[in-house]
């Protein structure tokens, strides 16, 4: 079965942490806590799902996102 292209359509209207069908709730929560904008990521999981690793590497990469508001 062909894997769908990871098309995370840019939806700038939504705040980071909003509903992103392509990430599971704990990962969305992690992203929110770390200040990672899921809409800026491309999912590497099956069917383009944004994984925990995608989020973590977005933090370690010099990201434009501000530090986690804790």
């Amino acid at each position, binding site marked *: 079965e062909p894997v769908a292209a990871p098309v995370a359509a840019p939806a700038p209207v939504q705040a980071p*942490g*909003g*509903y992103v069908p392509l990430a*599971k*709730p704990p990962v*969305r*929560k992690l992203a929110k*806590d770390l200040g990672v904008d899921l809409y800026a990521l491309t999912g590497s999981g099956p069917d383009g799902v944004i994984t925990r690793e995608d989020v973590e590497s977005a933090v370690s990469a010099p990201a434009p996102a501000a530090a986690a508001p804790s």
Partner: protein
Amino acid sequence: MESATNADLVILGGGSGGYACAFRAAELGLSVVLVEKDKLGGTCLHRGCIPTKALLHAAEVADNAREGDQFGVKSSLEGIDIAGVNSYKDGVVSRLYKGLQGLAKANKVTLVEGAGTFVGPNTVVVNGQRYVGKNVVLATGSYARSLPGLEIGGRVITSDQALNLDFIPEKVVVLGGGVIGVEFASVWRSFGSDVTIVEALPRLVPAEDEYASKQLERAFRKRGIKFKTGVKFTGATQTDSGVSITLENGDVLDADLLLVAVGRGPNSAGHGYEEAGVQIDRGFVITDERLRTNLPNVYAVGDIVPGLQLAHRGFQQGIFVAEEIAGQNPKVIDEAGIPRVTYCKPEVASVGLSEAAAKEKYGSAEVFIYDLAGNGKSQILKTTGGVKLIKAPDGPVVGVTMVGERVGELIGEAQLIYSWEAYPEDVAPLIHAHPTQTEALGEAFLALAGKPLHVHG
């Protein structure tokens, strides 16, 4: 004064908040002194959560025996052996107490017995001995409050006495329709007492979503638990044979006992806090969201900190402070994410916001109620109630309130959904096990996601 004992952490009070902090700190390699004047485990283990829930389970067993014929079981209830109930309850408590003492030992926490006084800046004195901590945690908990002019004694009791009665009152009045009040009302009713609850606010469990109050009131009415809401207590007089309670509306209630369950006050006086300069407001120790008091390296956790007075909040705050001190920079606790369970029959369980609170916060809210009439397992249990979900507009589910027997066990799932900010679309595809009560939660999420399965219009 003798020489001082030094430690990374000195904790004043060995209840839920204090001991959780001690264990976690010890795990993280800190040296810990835990000062407790009474028994490790505090209110929750010895005079709170555990003994009340043992009574509530005995109450459930009694109800089952009384109502067996509804299920085809020829059972009968000859009565309650209150000494037997107490020894069952005490057995549970003492087994858990033993376990807890073992954990303190295993964690190498230094337990100091005695009443401690905080003398600042970093020092606690117990029986003349000084314990100096790089950090100090205040965790002295709470006590049962009364109303002005209403003295506890004789037939006027608090939960402390109610837990250890050697008789079942024939007639009892419960002052306060909050968690502790409705739990005792529920127990006594199951044990055969004539019970009346008096609540000044307009509804039972007033801290919960109104839906819960309505459901609970309906169920209590059916059980024959009387209640007067929206009416103030004015006084009580004791005689040899009873206690007479008067209300603002002129009503007079006669009873064998009056249980005063009007809330718990912070136990912050007499331990040197204010004298040492700790900021106190109406008796509560004031902290920031990282549980720091106004004094450097002095923290507070549990019931003395304003907010929910719950054992697992104490655990969570205790763990938080230990990790904070150890430099782990833990995430600030979301108070609304702490699950709340009232263990009466039927139970009430909630997490997140009530409908009213959500509307205030978000301007509007989407609401869905799933009635337990559609839930097979609840029908089997012959319980009624429902699951109410509150969703932020274009946002995740921000509140769950449930009523029904045993729904307290569904709050674990609801807590994850709330805390991970799940959308109905996340939960809906995960069809729940049939036939369980968890299905009611699952069905509610299916419906909110626009794909109801067993939902009656």
